[in-house]
């Protein structure tokens, strides 16, 4: 069991801004929470390749195809940095992946929405990666060393993701009436789900206080969401895009944009598995995992035989 002295000492280290490394003593619950959060983050990066991957073969130009391919490959990389980080906590990657494919592990709800047109690809880059940057910039300061370092690496790649989306959206918003309509329609569909990416309001987020106390997170869901909204209002205006919220108003006193009620019923139904694409996404991920099994086995067997041969030869 975690003794009070040890806990006290641990909290002291966190409060001093020290990083916790894999072999350091840590409370059992700190380890559990990290495994949960880090693996959820990893699963999200991986499943996040699907909505965008959906458009790779139908990109509007060779340039956009190369850009999208590179972006989606980065997301695979993010997943791998994060799995690698999670494994430092003494868990096996296979268990993490199978807990997600066949068990209860969750991933970000945002990836349970469909990508209906190429404008969705623009908007994902702008809004979804934009929100991810806000979140991950905070996580780059996380108290757990490997998680912090994985997020530093991720953040270096995210600004490309956001900028390519924003640039494309700006072009569409400045294009033909059809393009403008497509762009606005995609923003209308993605805006609210993106705001939900930051998680429930602080008052409904039971884990938040503990995660902040332990320095896993350094800002609350509502703080991050507000920061995001303030920035996006400005960026939307700059390219002539409207945000679908009639309640958006600037508060002179606080210096922040106030926004309307987030449709939380929708959020919870998507979390529970009833979003428009939940089943589809899980099906695609399981299929990839199961159809890849013979490759994993064959490569292992090949390596084993080669080792034997080398041993014989020497």
């Amino acid at each position, binding site marked *: 069991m975690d003794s009070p002295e040890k806990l006290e000492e641990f909290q002291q280290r966190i409060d001093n801004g020290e990083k916790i490394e894999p*072999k350091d003593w840590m409370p059992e619950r700190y380890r559990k929470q990290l495994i949960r959060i880090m693996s959820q983050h990893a699963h999200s990066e991986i499943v996040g390749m699907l909505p965008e991957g959906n458009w790779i073969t139908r990109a509007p130009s060779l340039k956009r195809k190369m850009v999208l391919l590179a972006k989606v*490959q980065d997301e695979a990389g993010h997943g791998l940095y994060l799995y690698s980080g999670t494994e430092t906590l003494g868990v096996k*990657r296979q268990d993490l992946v199978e807990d997600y494919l066949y068990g209860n592990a969750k991933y970000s709800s945002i990836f349970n929405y469909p990508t209906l047109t190429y404008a969705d690809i623009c908007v994902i880059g702008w809004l979804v990666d934009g929100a991810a940057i806000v979140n991950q910039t905070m996580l780059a300061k996380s108290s757990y060393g490997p998680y912090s370092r994985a997020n530093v690496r991720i953040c270096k790649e995210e600004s490309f993701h956001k900028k390519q989306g924003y640039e494309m959206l700006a072009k569409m918003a400045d294009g033909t009436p059809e393009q403008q309509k497509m762009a606005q329609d995609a923003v209308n569909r993605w805006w609210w789900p993106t705001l939900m990416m930051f998680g429930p309001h602080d008052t409904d987020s039971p884990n938040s206080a503990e995660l902040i106390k332990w320095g896993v997170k350094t800002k609350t869901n509502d703080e991050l969401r507000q920061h995001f909204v303030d920035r996006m209002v400005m960026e939307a205006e700059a390219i002539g895009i409207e945000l679908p919220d009639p309640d958006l108003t600037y508060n002179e006193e606080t210096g922040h944009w106030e926004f309307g009620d987030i449709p939380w019923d929708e959020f919870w139904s998507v979390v529970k598995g009833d979003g428009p694409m939940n089943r589809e996404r899980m099906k695609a991920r399981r299929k990839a995992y199961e159809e890849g099994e013979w490759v994993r086995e064959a490569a292992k067997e090949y390596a084993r035989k080669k080792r034997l041969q080398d041993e014989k030869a020497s």
Partner: protein
Amino acid sequence: MTKNSSENTEWPLWEVFYQPKDGKPFEHAGSVHAPDAELALQNARDTYARRNEGIAFWVVPSDQIVASSPEDQGPFFDPANDKPYRHPQFYSVPRAVKKRK
């Protein structure tokens, strides 16, 4: 559940070190799974150097890494703590020499 981890199809884990630039020391990047050393190097490149972050790699089976343990950190590094004479500040130099840096 149709799958469980009773059968282990996971490839071994390798720690990845990369040299960021010519002349720089190698740094730890993270880890990759791979069936052998050759694929470990390729996976390391695809995972950790998509933008030339590294110009050279080392991969080492993770179970071959030996690390000092944090519990012994005090006694382990103790011998270095009481030897100020290992630092140049420990010595005095004539003033005339000190001036010209």
